[in-house]
């Protein structure tokens, strides 16, 4: 291979690398936050069932924060991160259970669609529908719509 051919492929390679970085960079999120946050999250231990590794990379669960509001309603916040570098969609649904473990029925519960940018972290929140609802379950699935 002569020098001009090598230069041609080298230039093409670096051109593609620059394009690759720009394309990826446009779909990822840079963040900045206080190094010592004032907020005191009440993180809880959780049980996870993750049969879908692809979904697990799109909507990676970082932690669960649960509180009880002054009105006596439980409130939960789940931190989700997109570990990939591309925008992804997923759907989620919160279910709540009373003190006896019974599902609290809801007529408006429907899977919600969310978009999450590459490397972005978002929060999914839910407030218990009744004061008796104490436990919850978050269902995550790949977006079909």
């Amino acid at each position, binding site marked *: 291979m002569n020098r001009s051919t090598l230069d041609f492929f080298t230039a093409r390679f670096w051109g593609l690398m620059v394009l690759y970085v720009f394309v990826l960079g446009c779909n990822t999120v840079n963040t900045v936050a206080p190094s010592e946050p004032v907020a005191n999250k009440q993180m809880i231990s959780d049980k996870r069932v993750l049969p879908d590794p692809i979904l697990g990379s799109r909507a990676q669960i970082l932690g669960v924060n649960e509180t009880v*509001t*002054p*009105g*006596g*309603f439980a*409130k939960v916040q789940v931190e989700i991160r997109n570990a990939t570098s591309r925008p992804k969609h997923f*759907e989620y649904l919160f279910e709540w259970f009373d003190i006896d473990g019974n599902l*609290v*029925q*809801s*007529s*408006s*519960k*429907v*899977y*919600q669609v969310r978009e999450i940018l590459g490397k972005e972290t978002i929060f999914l*929140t*839910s*407030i*218990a*529908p*009744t*004061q008796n609802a104490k436990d919850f379950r978050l269902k995550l*699935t790949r977006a*079909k*719509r």
Partner: protein
Amino acid sequence: MRQVKKFIAIGMLPVWLVGCATSSTYVDPNGQRTVVNVGKINIQDFSTAADAFIQTILGKLAEGQLQSSEPGEPAVMAISRISNNTTAHLDTDQLVKKMRIELNRSGKILTTTTLGYGGVEDPLAKETQEYLAMTGRGSGQRLPDYTLTGKILEDYARDGRTKQVSYIFQMSLTDQAGLAIWEDEKIITKQGKSGAVGW
């Protein structure tokens, strides 16, 4: 004979398959198999908007910010004007009823059916209430602590063959002093490719 039976069975197979086949099936209205149309508000869109509003109202309740005028009793809400500013003919109860059900289940906010914008929802309940008040056996109509108003709008956009429609749901809860104690907006945006002919 066995061969004949076998051929008859094979020959009848298409008849059985066609006879048993159906083009209709039940789907969960809250599931993921519901149809998504760009040109209309689907049933799951009403559920999505209602769920979003309920969450923020519950947030207010959870912080103790929506109080009843009767101590120890749930707050009373009346349904005021819910406008449909879209091009579709739709019943706004598809949104409001879901909200009412969940607020009722919370035990914190009940909806009156004997007072509302445009007329009484339950005329018989209204007559019963008035009769009991007249005979001294009831307290009559309790004034609502809050009134619920709202509006549904739509916005169209197009870029080449891609068409986009946004449905904007706006709701407010107003207290007895005429102040909007809760307000929220939910936008549902859908995109699709338009066909070669038509919008």
